[in-house]
């Protein structure tokens, strides 16, 4: 076997392309999951049964299915129903659907934690529900929901490795292929783990900074 440094240099380009795929999958599904999660949270806290009940059932339904099964379903079953997605698209959609539930619950927790008096004050100046949510409740709810939302982000980043099972060429997938062609398991998977940490550690630090800053603003 060639020396360690040479091997690292040899593996790095392949793993880096995987890393970018991981970042792309994570960011896209994060945006989708956050938007969808906000929809679930708003529906559930709307106070109208025909909005809150469907949202509750959808969230409970999706939360009850493992991510792997959701991914298999979207990638292998949906084409039979006429929805043909690439592995990358299926991966993003699967992660987004699953995480929209976690993120939705996080947002809902934030919304419910906003002081009742804020709602009453907003109502008492004549605000209707939509404007009250937008201008008074959500800005405060996001602040409350930020720490758990940060956790969701890190978990989503790590769970993006699951899309390797439907052959998305992200970091874990590239590592697996590299390891099976070189049999250099230790180097390859150590590098894979290190590359994940290169993403998760800065992300954690960033979240802490933002929390401190928001905490100081009020």
């Amino acid at each position, binding site marked *: 076997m060639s020396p360690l440094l040479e091997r690292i240099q040899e593996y790095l380009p392949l793993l880096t392309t995987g890393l970018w795929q991981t970042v792309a999958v994570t960011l896209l599904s994060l945006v989708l999951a956050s938007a969808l999660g906000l929809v679930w949270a708003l529906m559930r806290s709307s106070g109208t049964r025909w909005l809150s009940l469907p949202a509750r059932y959808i969230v409970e339904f999706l939360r009850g299915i493992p991510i792997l099964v959701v991914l298999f379903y979207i990638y292998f079953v949906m084409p039979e129903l006429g929805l043909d997605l690439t592995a990358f698209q299926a991966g993003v959609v699967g992660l987004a659907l699953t995480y929209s539930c976690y993120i939705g619950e996080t947002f809902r927790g934030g919304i419910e934690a906003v*002081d009742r*008096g*804020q709602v*009453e*004050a*907003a*109502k*008492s*100046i*004549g*605000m*209707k529900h939509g*404007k009250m949510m937008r*201008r*008074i409740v959500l*800005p*405060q709810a996001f*602040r409350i929901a930020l720490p758990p939302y940060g956790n969701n982000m890190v978990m989503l980043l790590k769970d993006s490795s699951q899309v390797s099972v439907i052959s998305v060429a992200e970091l874990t997938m590239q590592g697996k292929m590299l390891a099976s062609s070189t049999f250099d398991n230790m180097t390859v998977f150590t590098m894979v783990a290190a590359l994940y940490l290169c993403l998760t550690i800065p992300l954690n630090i960033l979240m802490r900074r933002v929390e401190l800053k928001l905490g100081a*603003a*009020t």
Partner: protein
Amino acid sequence: MIRFENVHKSFGKHEVLKGIDAEVDKGQVMCLIGASGSGKSTMLRCVNGLEDYQSGRISIDGETINAHASSIHAIRTRVAMVFQRFNLFPHMTALQNVMEGPIHVLGENRDEVRARAEEHLRRVGLAEKMDFYPSALSGGQQQRVAIARALAMRPDAILLDEPTSALDPEMVGEVLSVLRDLAQERMTMLIVTHEIQFAREVADGVIFLDQGRIAEHGSAEAVLSKPTHPRTQDFLRRVTHPV
């Protein structure tokens, strides 16, 4: 102007208002007093639909209040409210708090609203604190911002729910003096309060509530100085000479 006609209100099986009849005229200051649990806050909150009621009628200038009708939003812009716990919006400065309603609910011109909001804040003695966030203000200052926020809506009447009860004693005076000024300007106010001395000074009328009923109702002098109902006498003895 604000009128209660045989108003009944229950929380589940518990009836908190048992047939309230009362009227607040334009320019009048009406104080609601009574022990906690007597229904005075509930009575106040029914006026702007923060609570609904089951029967009877509450009306403002003849318009019936229905907490579940869409008309309630417009009514709330005409009847402002000041809360015991201030309920300022914590993510906005004092000035933004005062400007929020006129700009985002009434859709008024931002520059005009800003000028008016600054004027209101000056009037309540907070010219120096306009750009402060609520968390940087004392309780008394927060409550004065809340009063300015109510005034900025140019309401026909203001409801005040124990406006000094959450304040440290040394801050009660600054809030009451603002309210005294408003009373002098003939602002219509319905005030739930435990400040008997203040009520005696500014109130045109006083309502004493006891277990969801109006036990006594009349001029401040009559109710507070010569109460006839034994419950009023007992209540006043306890709040003016606390044990």
